[in-house]
C-alpha cells in the first residue's frame, strides 16, 4: 500500500493552494458580508482547470479525476468553503452529463461548463425534503417536442450564477406503481424557468443557495438526460459518487484550516509569559484536531481513489462524507476553544470555519441519513 501522492498530485495541491491564496482569499470578506458569489472568479476557475476536473479532454476538461478533485476542493475550501461548495456542485452537473448524456449533449454543454462560461447546478431537493426522493413533487409531462416541467427546487447551490442545470422530475409511475423520475438538462433561458428566493445562510456565505422555479417550463425533448425513468438512478449516483466526496473534501479542507489557524494562534498567543502552545491542555486540543483531520483525509482519499479505479465505492463515499463533515465541526469547535474570546471576533477565521462546518453536515444528506446507509452496511457485512 503506497500512501504517497504522485508528483502530479503534489504539484496540483501546490498550484491550487497558490490560486486560492491569490484569487480567492481577497474575496472572502466581501462574500461574507454580501452573501454574493464573485462572478469573475468563475472564468478564473475555468482557466486554471478546476471546472473541468471530472470532464474528459475531448469535452474540454482535463479529466484529472476524483482524487485530484478531492485535493483541489480541499485546498480551495481551506481558504473558502463557499467557493468549495460552488465548485463541488458544479462537478455534480458535469459528471451526470458525461456519464449519461448523448454525444450532442456532451458536446453542447460540457465545454461551456469546463471553460467557466457558467457554473453548473445539480438540484434534487424540494421544499418537501431532499433525502426523501420519492416525495419529490416536481413533474414533467411530454407535450409535442417538449417536456413541460412544473414545480420548485430549493437549496440549489449556484442557483443564481448558473445557466446549465441538471434536475430530476417525476415523469409517471413504474410497472409496480411507484413514482418514476427522469433527469433533464435545463437552461436558465428556457421559457417558464425563473429564479425564486435566495437563502441567507449562516455558513457557506457567498455561495448562492436558492430556488429554481418551473412554471410550464418548456424543455426540448433532446434535453432528457439518460432514459425516461432513470432519473432516480442518476440522482442517487451523482449524490453518492460526486456530491458526498465533494462535501467530504470541503470537510477535510475545513479540518486543516482549523488545524493551521489553531496551531498558529497557539504559537503566537502568550499567556503567563509563554506561548499557550506550551500548555498541555492546548496541545491535547491540537492533537485531537490533527487526528480528526488526518482520519477524514485518509477516508476521503481512499474513497476517491476507489472511484478513480472504477471500484464500487458508495459506502466509502458516504463514510468519508459523514466523518469529514462531522470532524470539520469538531475541529473548528476546538480551534475556537484555543482562540478563546478571539473566536467570537469576525476578523478571526475560526468562527467562519465553525459556521461553514455546521452547514456542511446536512449538505448532501444529514449525518443521520449517512448513518442509516452505514448502519445497514454494517449489519449486512460485519
Amino acid at each position, binding site marked *: 500500500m503506497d500512501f504517497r501522492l504522485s*508528483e*502530479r498530485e*503534489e*504539484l*496540483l495541491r*501546490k*498550484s491550487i493552494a*497558490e*490560486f486560492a491564496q*491569490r*484569487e480567492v482569499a481577497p474575496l472572502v470578506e466581501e462574500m461574507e458580508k454580501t452573501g454574493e458569489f464573485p462572478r469573475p472568479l468563475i472564468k478564473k476557475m475555468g*482557466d*486554471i*482547470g*478546476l471546472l*473541468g*476536473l471530472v470532464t474528459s479532454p475531448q469535452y474540454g476538461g*482535463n479529466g*484529472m479525476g476524483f482524487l*485530484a478533485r478531492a485535493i483541489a476542493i480541499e485546498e480551495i475550501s481551506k481558504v473558502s468553503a463557499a467557493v468549495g461548495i460552488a465548485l463541488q456542485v458544479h462537478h455534480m452537473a458535469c459528471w451526470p452529463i458525461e456519464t449519461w448524456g448523448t454525444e450532442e449533449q456532451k458536446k453542447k454543454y460540457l465545454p461551456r461548463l469546463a471553460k467557466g462560461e457558467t457554473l453548473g447546478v445539480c438540484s434534487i431537493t424540494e421544499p418537501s425534503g431532499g433525502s426523501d426522493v420519492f416525495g419529490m413533487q416536481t413533474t414533467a409531462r411530454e407535450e409535442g417536442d417538449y417536456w413541460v416541467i412544473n414545480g420548485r427546487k430549493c437549496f440549489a447551490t449556484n442557483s443564481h450564477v448558473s445557466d446549465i442545470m441538471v434536475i430530476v422530475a417525476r415523469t409517471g409511475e413504474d410497472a409496480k406503481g411507484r413514482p418514476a423520475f427522469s433527469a433533464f438538462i435545463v437552461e436558465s433561458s428556457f421559457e417558464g424557468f425563473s429564479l425564486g428566493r435566495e437563502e441567507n445562510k449562516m455558513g457557506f456565505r457567498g455561495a448562492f443557495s436558492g430556488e429554481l422555479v418551473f412554471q410550464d417550463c418548456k424543455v426540448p425533448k433532446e434535453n432528457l438526460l439518460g432514459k425516461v425513468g432513470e432519473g432516480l438512478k442518476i440522482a442517487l449516483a451523482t449524490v453518492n459518487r460526486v456530491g458526498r466526496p465533494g462535501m467530504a473534501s470541503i470537510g477535510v479542507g475545513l479540518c486543516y484550516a482549523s488545524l493551521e489557524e489553531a496551531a498558529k494562534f497557539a504559537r503566537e498567543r502568550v499567556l503567563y509569559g509563554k506561548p499557550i502552545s506550551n500548555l498541555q491542555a492546548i496541545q491535547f486540543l491540537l492533537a485531537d484536531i490533527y487526528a480528526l483531520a488526518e482520519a477524514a483525509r485518509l477516508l476521503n482519499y481512499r474513497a476517491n481513489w476507489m472511484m478513480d479505479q472504477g471500484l464500487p465505492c458508495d459506502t466509502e463515499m458516504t463514510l468519508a462524507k459523514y466523518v469529514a463533515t462531522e470532524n470539520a465541526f469538531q475541529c473548528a469547535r476546538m480551534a475556537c476553544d484555543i482562540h478563546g474570546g478571539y473566536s467570537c471576533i469576525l476578523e478571526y477565521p475560526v468562527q467562519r470555519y465553525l459556521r461553514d462546518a455546521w452547514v456542511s453536515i446536512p449538505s448532501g444528506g444529514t449525518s443521520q441519513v449517512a448513518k442509516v446507509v452505514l448502519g445497514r452496511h454494517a449489519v449486512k457485512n460485519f
Partner: protein
Amino acid sequence: MPEAVVCVKPIPDPKHWDRLSLDPKTGVLRREGIPTVINPLDKHALEVALQLKDNFGWEVTVVSMAPPETTQTLKEALAMGADRAYLASDRLLAGADTLATAYTLAGLIKKKAPNFQMVLCGNMSLDGSTSQVAPQIAHYLGVPHITHVSKVETEDGSKFRVTMDLKLAQLVLEHQGPMVLAVTKEVNLPRLVNIMGILAAESKPLEVLSAADLELDPSRIGQEGSPTRVRNLFMPEIKRRREILKGEPEEVAEELVNRLHQAGML
C-alpha cells in the same frame, strides 16, 4: 526559434523559515521537513521568458544546479509553460560558491542551449542573497548582462529595451543579441500553474546531467573549485531596546516624537 534560458534555484520555502535552524557543530543549515520551492524571483524570470514564448514563439529552457530530489521544482517550471528542463546534479557539484555555480550553469547552457538569445535569472536568491550568479554566468558566456531589471520591452522579439531599477534612478538600456538579465519582482506577476500545464509537463523532457556529462573542469566545480569559503554561519540575535521615559505627559510625548524622528521612523 530564439531560445530563452531561465536559471532556477530550488530553495527552502520562505513560509517555513521560522523552522530553519543551524547545526551548532557543523554550521550547516537544517532544512529537514521544509518543502522546496522555486526561488520566488526566478518565477518572475520565467514569466519574462514565457511572455516571449506567447508573443514571439520563443522556446524556453530551464536550467538548475541542485540535488536530484529537487526535480519537482523543475516540473513546476515545465507546468508553468517551459519547454524543457536540465538539472546539473552530482555530488562533485555540492558546496559550490557563486563562481563555481555560475561556471557550472554556464557549462550547462553552452552544452544544451548554445544558441540562446537571452539568459534570465532572479536578481537574487532569497536564501543566499548574493546577486552574484547572474553577472558571473554572463562572464563565462561572454555576453553582456543587466541586473535589477524591472521592465523588459520589445516590439519584435529581437531588439529589447530594458529598465534597470537603481532605486534613486532608472537606467533604460537597449540591446540586440544574446544577454543575461537578472530581474526584480517589479518586472511582472508570474502566472499560476494550471492543471492542463501540470498534465502537459509530464511529457516534456527533464534531463539530469552529471559533472562528467557536462565535461566541466573538475578544479572549478563544487566546494573544491570554490575560491570563497563560509567561515561562520550564525542566526543574528535580535534584541529589543527598552527605555522608559519619565516626566509629565506632554514632555514625555514630545520626547517620544523626537526620539522616533531621530530613529528615522516618522
